[in-house]
């Protein structure tokens, strides 16, 4: 499933970024300068990853339609659709439901 070399493409709020296979989703987004992972439910401020070990829950994003995935614990192995809730809204067009079969992510080691 993983592409052996080169890169995989991730759509973050509709904008494509490129990642090397095996990177954590958090690493791929940070490498692309995408630091806004979620909107704080109380303040509305954009937030990014803090701890990198699954403790702080600041890096939670929607991945292929599954809510609340910790991006630091998800490895990118194929194309995925990420929604942060911080960017311009995109209409849900069916691409984001279900999501397990053929999804391009697996849990990071």
């Amino acid at each position, binding site marked *: 499933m993983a592409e*052996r070399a080169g890169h995989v493409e991730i759509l973050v709020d509709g904008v494509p970024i490129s990642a090397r296979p095996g*990177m954590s989703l958090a*690493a791929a987004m940070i490498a692309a300068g995408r630091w806004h992972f979620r909107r*704080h439910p*109380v303040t509305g401020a954009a937030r*990014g990853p803090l701890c990198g*070990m699954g*403790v702080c829950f*600041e890096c939670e994003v929607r991945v292929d339609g599954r809510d609340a995935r910790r991006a630091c614990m998800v490895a990118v192995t194929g194309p995925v659709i990420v929604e942060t809730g911080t960017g311009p809204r995109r209409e849900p067009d069916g691409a984001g439901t279900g999501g397990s079969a053929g999804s391009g992510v697996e*849990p990071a080691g």
Partner: protein
Amino acid sequence: MTGPAGGTAVLRADVAVVGGGPAGMEAALWCARAGLAVVVLDEHEDLGGQYFRRRHPAIRAVHGDHRPEGTALAEAVRASGARVLTRHVVWGVDGRALLAHDEEGDRALRVEAGHVVVATGAYERVLPFPGWELPGVVTPGLAMHLATMDRVAVGSRVLLAGSGPFLLPVACALLEVGARVVAVVEAGRPYRPGGPGVRGGVEALRHPARLAELGGYLARLARHRVPVLQDRVVAEAVGGARVARVRTVRTCGGGDREFEVDALAVGYGFRPATELVRLLGARTVVDPRTGDVVIAAGDDGATSVPGLYAVGELAGVAGVHAARLRGRLAAMSITAAAAGETRADGRERERLRRRLRRLVAFASLTGRLYPPPVEMVDTLPDEVHVCRCEAVPAGRVRAIARTGLNDVHAVKGGSRAGMGLCQARECGTALWRLAGASGSTAPLPARMPVRPVPTGVVADMDRSGPADPAGPEQV
């Protein structure tokens, strides 16, 4: 979220190990080799924990293995016959039983074992400051994982700050992935001038390898002209969409110095992750300086609860070698209890105990060289959020503490501080301090679930037991 459809599976074993890091793996390995039925539960995809966290195979194929000893240990565990259940989050307990969520299968699992070894590790200590919620402000651990696991620099101009020897290898790892480290800002004063030595306070101890390692990092930072500034802490981070500037001050105040950055990695050492072992009833004491909960455990990790062991950084932050020894010693006690011990085993056990004690003595000296500057919480401006999950400002916590309800329970209940997703793992030290810190102030309570878990999984637990159609499953 939908819960699992069926009832709860029950798993029985001689030994259940929670946490597949260095200590948990050692405990599992030696128990399994002695013929005991062992199950290891870990929330990550792979064994390793944080120190031995493993690169994804696709990254390893390009960049190699950065922790081969960890790989060897993980392979030995898998070959030992221990049953390894990764992506299993232990979120609670029921008496002695462990309640887990199998994330992959989205189902509940109940684990019953004669011996429980808890090896849940430690968290980085984060202390709040104005701007700490800005994107681009991270822990040194995140910067380290990005650099070593993913080969990604957290920023192009990074300030590394906090306290503890861990800042040095992180700074070096950042240089290796091409980041510019604008400075290392250390709250204490552990390093002497005039060279890459940590000669000062630690020369009396016989740990040449550890000292050489620290000296090596300092020499590398000097070669890259990275200033190592001591007696200095982060006072404020400023930015818009992302951190852009960091103001630092002397640890006791004054002497402003600013840095232009695009990332700030800041952390003040580590604190043990004690929630689970506390839920299981282990006796604890509170560190009067930091509010950290410390498990009262023997060299072998034996707690006040028979059959319950606390090993690794959970039992005291002392590094990977001590963590492995603690896991091994716990296994020795468990196997001795199950099958007896030969005289040679006993001699080996005493030898390992002596090694552990030397490492712990070194760690406690290191700890004294790098005291976390928890006093900085006292001058935190009222409007700064101390609890970042629930956005609770320091002033609100102080107001509740002033009413006389100055215990942590009242502060939590009155302000919602510490009640968000991270369950006070990030704000715990600061909250305890603001709630009226003293040796008699109770720490934040350990509550279930210790990790967020789908409600369906919790509901499912009620249907478990003898009626479970699948019946208990043996390891």
